[in-house]
């Protein structure tokens, strides 16, 4: 049973690298680490909602790093996730300029365990801009682009999900959506610079 199965770090990394295993891997991450990492946030001035939001960001960041071979496996996944969780939460607190940060100066003094985490934190704001950018597109554009570039569906599969006449119409729509996104990036030179830092593309 998937629900009770234990995955070794190596098995988990393989699942995350294979597109099809992400659902299973993410569920496993939730079952194994959500409780532990959530408690840390709550014990350091965070709410339950904060704990959930930070955990989602941790999972997204971890998968992204694994898929870009930035997770070098120098520590266990559990240790890495804990460090990522702590650094994201401290960065978030700093961003909010809450007084709680003063209580945790000792935490700030700790060096980042991993270069990947350090790079991630530096690019965190840019990543938020990435999320906002795609959300500016219409729902159909988001559906087509995510289906094609993230879910790796074929034009025929996308056609079966959306109400279009034929594949060519979907293809043209996809070009227009990409052009729109590219124009949004072109309109703000600083945004392009931030995105470059934030996205570890090839």
């Amino acid at each position: 049973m998937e629900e009770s199965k234990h995955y070794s770090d190596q098995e988990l990394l393989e699942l995350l690298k294979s597109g099809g295993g992400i659902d299973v891997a993410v569920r496993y991450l939730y079952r194994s680490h959500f409780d532990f990492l959530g408690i840390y946030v709550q014990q350091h001035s965070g709410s339950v909602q904060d704990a959930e939001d930070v955990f989602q960001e941790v999972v997204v960041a971890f998968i992204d790093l694994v898929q870009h071979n930035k997770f070098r496996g120098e520590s266990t996944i559990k240790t890495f996730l804990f460090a990522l969780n702590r650094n994201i939460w401290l960065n978030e607190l700093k961003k909010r300029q809450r007084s709680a940060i003063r209580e945790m100066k000792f935490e700030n003094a700790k060096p980042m365990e991993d270069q990947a985490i350090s790079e991630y934190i530096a690019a965190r704001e840019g990543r938020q801009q990435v999320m906002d950018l795609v959300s500016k597109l219409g729902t159909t554009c988001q559906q087509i682009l995510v289906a094609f570039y993230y879910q790796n569906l074929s034009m025929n599969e996308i056609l079966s999900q959306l109400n279009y006449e034929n594949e060519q119409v979907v293809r043209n729509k996809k070009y227009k959506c990409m052009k729109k996104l590219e124009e949004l990036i072109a309109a703000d030179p600083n945004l392009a610079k931030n995105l470059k830092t934030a996205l570890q593309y090839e």
Partner: protein
Amino acid sequence: MNNEFYNTELLIRYLDKELSAEEMIALEQRLAAEQGLREELERLKLAREAVRLHGLKQQVKKIHTEMRGTASANPIIGRNNIRAIGKWTMRIAAVVVLVVLGVGVYQYATLSNEKLFAEQYQPYEMRASRGAETESPVEAAYKKKDFPGVIAVFNNVSTHATADYFLVGQAYLQQNNNKEAIRNLELANASADTSHLYKDE
């Protein structure tokens, strides 16, 4: 189809690896020569990565919602309850401490000589002396608890024993004449023959 859109389509097909070998070579030659085209390709790469990241976030969010929905007894919320119980325990403890402090402060604030006297004073009871040959009229009156009588008898006699001073002092106390009570008790205390007798009383 205008030239700009043609270029964008060409670049997207290049990113999607849909160009033929000839088309790819031709485009790469153009990319080497045209900075504007190179910049557009960079932005399209960024756009593609942005979509990929957006998709990943959506997928994780969907699973998160699903997991939160099925996990009715969420561990984090469970621990929150534990923390809430801890908070309530601390609140109750604080209330108990405040009540105890309040009672202490009230008792201190309401403490007075009169109150202390009323609570602690016990009238002196004369003990029966085995083999006592005689007793003075003052003693006789005190035994009967005739306190005005004690004072009257005492005042009618010119010479007094230590016991008389002590007993009349007690009688004045019973009559709430504290000034006379103190004066006579001090005389009893100072009397040369009292030694230890009555001092404790």
